[in-house]
Structures are given as C-alpha cells and as structure tokens.
C-alpha cells in the first residue's frame, strides 16, 4: 500500500474546560495504524501529558470516541487510511459533552440521561424463578435484538444536532436503549419508562436527523428506535395507557 506521506500531519485539540486550541504534530505513518494509535504515538513520544481515553482497543468498551476530521468515531477501530484527508487528520474531543482535558470528554450527562430515560431493566421475576422461554423469532424479541448491541460510546450523541441545540434532550443512545426494553417481554417497567420517554427531554424532541444512525459504529438505528417510541407513546397516550 502506498501512503500519501511518510509522516502524517495531525492536528490535535488540547486544552480543558476553559478553552484550548489545535496543536500540530508529525506522526510516522504505518501500515496498521488506527486513529487511537496516532494519538497514542503522540502521547508516548512527544506529548507525555496528552489526555485521552481508551480501554478495550477493539470496539467493545466505547470509551475511545473522538471527533476525527469533524466526525465522531470510535478511534480504536478507525484505520487512518479510512479518514486521512486533504486536511490531514484533525482530532478533537467528542462533541456535545464537556471537555475534561484534551481529548477526554466528561460522559456524566450521557449516562445521567441514560438513567433518566429508564434505560434499565425492571425485573418481573427473581433469581429463584425459571427463565422466561422466548422464541428467537418472536417479533418483540427481534425488535429488541436489533437495537441491543450498543456499547454506549456516545458517538450518536455527538453526531446529533438536536442534542447540541436542546440540552434537556436524552439523545439517541438512551432512547434506543429504552426502546429495546419496551420490547422486552420480561420487563416490568413499561409504564414508568413510557412516562420517562414521553417527558420533556424524551423522544418527541427528536427531529429524525438520522445522524445517529449514520455514525453508529455498530450499525444500530436509533432513529428507528426513537420513531418506535414516538409511536408507542403517542398510542398509549391516546388509548389512556392501554396500548402496549
């Protein structure tokens, strides 16, 4: 493979909650090199205090998301050659979240909203009961399954302009999770969750921009999930909570 350059031109945002700016680095190009590797190289070789976050390095933990050339991405699984462009590589902290330092964003709001959207299972049974038999083909199960493999990376959250404009909005990931649970026949939290997702930060704020599904690295479709929630919530309101 031919590389455009032996040395990659990389701009990295450095700073903290009080502001910052881009710093320029030359990073040796390699055959196998992800955006996370570029950031790592800079930290290990020229900028020892560069802050960023990662854990699993294989797209499972969702802690390495950053803005790469203006787009949110999981950096551990983004090969440089996929994104290296005319402007080189521009790396910044995830959008729509406060910066802690350099490339590390504060994800607290993201998870607070996850909880506010009732993004958790409410048990209807206990450990002493048998497990619910559920056919893998049951429509509810299929719907739940389609949205389940979220790694809470906040890439969708960073891609959504509605989140930018509306600080109360729960955002795509939390609502996508809520949708999974509304389809989970084992769950006993349907009603509280219905109230949560219909509340003022809930699903009705979504304008179906679809940036969330465009950027979700796991090819999930929060837009469809949120549309599903809108349908359910509207119907349940119209029928006085009887629709399910």
């Amino acid at each position, binding site marked *: 493979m031919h590389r455009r350059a032996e040395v990659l031109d990389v701009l990295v945002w450095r700073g903290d909650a009080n502001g910052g700016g881009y710093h320029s680095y030359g990073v040796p190009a390699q055959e196998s090199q992800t955006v996370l590797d570029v950031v790592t190289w800079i930290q290990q070789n020229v900028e020892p205090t560069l802050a960023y976050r990662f854990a699993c390095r294989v797209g499972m933990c969702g802690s390495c998301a950053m803005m790469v050339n203006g787009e949110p991405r999981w950096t551990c699984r983004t090969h440089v050659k996929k994104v290296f462009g005319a402007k080189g590589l521009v790396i910044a902290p995830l959008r729509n979240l406060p910066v802690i330092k350099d490339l590390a964003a504060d994800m607290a709001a993201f998870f607070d909203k996850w909880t506010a959207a009732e993004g958790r299972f409410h048990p209807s049974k206990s450990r002493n009961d048998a497990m619910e038999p559920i056919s893998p083909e049951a429509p509810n199960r299929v719907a739940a399954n389609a949205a389940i493999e979220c790694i809470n990376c906040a890439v969708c959250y960073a891609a959504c302009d509605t989140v930018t*404009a509306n600080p109360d*909005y729960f955002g795509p990931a939390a609502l996508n999770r809520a949708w999974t649970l509304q389809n989970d026949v084992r769950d006993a939290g349907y009603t509280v969750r219905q109230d949560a997702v*219909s509340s003022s930060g*809930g699903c*009705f704020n979504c304008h179906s921009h679809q940036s969330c599904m465009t950027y979700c690295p796991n090819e999930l479709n929060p837009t469809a999930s949120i549309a599903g929630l809108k349908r359910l919530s*509207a119907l349940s309101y119209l029928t006085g909570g009887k629709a399910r």
Partner: protein
Amino acid sequence: MIGVRLYLAQRLSALVMAPLMIGHLAVMIYAVQNGLSAEEILSRTQGSLWWGAFYGLFVIAVSIHAAIGVRAVVYETAGLPERILNPLTWAIGVSLFVMGGRAVAGVVL
C-alpha cells in the same frame, strides 16, 4: 421541551393540513392560470359553507401546528426557558388563529 401532548397536537394538525394543502395547491395552480382577482376569488368562496369549513379547518390546524413548530425552533436556537416559551407558543397560536379567522371571514362571509 416537547411532550406527548404538544407532539400529538403538532402531528395531528399536520395530518389534517396535508390533504387541505394539496387541495389548496391544486386550486391555486388551476386558479392562477387566468390571473387572480378579488372578484374571482370571492365568487368562488363567498357564501360557500364548504370553503368556509375547508379554510376554517386549515386555520385551526395551522395555528396549532405552526405555534408548536416555531416553539421548537425558538427553543433550539435561543434556548428560552419554558416560562417564556409557553406564553410565546400561545401567543403565536392565538394570533394566527385570529388573523386567519378574519381572513376566512373576509373571503367567505
């Protein structure tokens, strides 16, 4: 900022308007062919219960729809608190309704 009631009101009013607006567009395209005149419009509409209902329904729907729509846009661009947003929504809705009502009255009565 938008809950289930505002959402439903906005979507249902949109659903109501959709056929009305398709009809309106069709009539417009047909009517403008010969140039518009007050007389031409009024001859079509005046005293017609049908057109009265048609435009009356539209005015009701659009007052609701546009007020909620603008509310969202205003909130997302200016970030006003609900305290201001709610009266604003009402104000837009009511003034559209009043103005629209006068217009319908004007062309139908």
